[in-house]
C-alpha cells in the first residue's frame, strides 16, 4: 500500500514536471505583460524616473509597508532583548 502511494505520487509529480517543461516560457521572455506596462507608464503615472522606486513605493506600496513593519518588529525585539536593568543600590 505504501509502495503504491509512493509510485502514484511520484508519477503525478513527474507528469507535472514534464508538462511544465513543455509549457514553460521561452528563455528571456517575460512571464507577464506587467513589466512592459510599468516601463511605459511609470513616468506619466508616478513622475519618477526610477522605475524600481516607483514599483516599490507606488505600485507595490503595500509590500513596502510590510517590510517596514518587519523592521519595526525586529527593532522592538532587539531593544526588548538588550534592555538594561536599572542598578539597584
Amino acid at each position, binding site marked *: 500500500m505504501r509502495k503504491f502511494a509512493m509510485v502514484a505520487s511520484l508519477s503525478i509529480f513527474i507528469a507535472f514536471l514534464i508538462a511544465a517543461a513543455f509549457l514553460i516560457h521561452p528563455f528571456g521572455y517575460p512571464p507577464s505583460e506587467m513589466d512592459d506596462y510599468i516601463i511605459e507608464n511609470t513616468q506619466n503615472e508616478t513622475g519618477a524616473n526610477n522605475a524600481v522606486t516607483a514599483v516599490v513605493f507606488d505600485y507595490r506600496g503595500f509590500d513596502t*509597508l510590510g517590510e517596514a513593519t518587519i523592521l519595526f518588529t525586529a527593532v522592538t525585539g532587539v531593544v526588548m532583548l538588550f534592555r538594561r536593568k536599572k542598578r539597584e543600590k
Partner: protein
Amino acid sequence: MSKIVRTMANILILFVLTFSLYIIMHGHLTPGGGFQGGAVFASGIALLIVAFGSDNIHKSLKEHHLSILESSGALIFIGLAFGGLATVFFYNFLVGSPIFGHIPPAGPNSGDLWTGGVIPFMNLAVGLKVLAGLSAILLVMALATTTMEVEE
C-alpha cells in the same frame, strides 16, 4: 581606539552621512532609496561606535530618541499611504500638483528632483525609519556587550 582612528572617523563621518542623505533624497532618480540610505547612515553610526566607544556615543544619542524617530517615520509613511485613500490605498496623489508634481519627459533622461509625487516623501519617511531603527539596534547591542565586559 587610537587617535588616528578617531581623527579619520571625524573626517569620514561627514561624507558618510551626506552620502546617505543623498541616497535617500534622490531615491526616485538614481538607484537607492530609503532602505539603502538608512543602512548607509547606520553604518556611519557603527563607525562612530567603533571609533569612540558606545558609552561616549550614548551621551548624545539615546535609544529612546531613536525609537521616537522610527515611530514617527512609520506614522508619516502610513499617513501618506492614507492620503491617497480617496482613490485607492497608496495612490500617488501629488503627481501633477505644485508640490513635487512635475512630470518628466518620456524616455531616458536625467530628470530633476522636483518629480515623483509622494515618492520622495515616502523615501524620506522610510529612510528616517530605517536609519533610526538600525542605529538603535547597533547602539543597544554595543551597550549590552560593553556592560557585559564590565560585569565580568
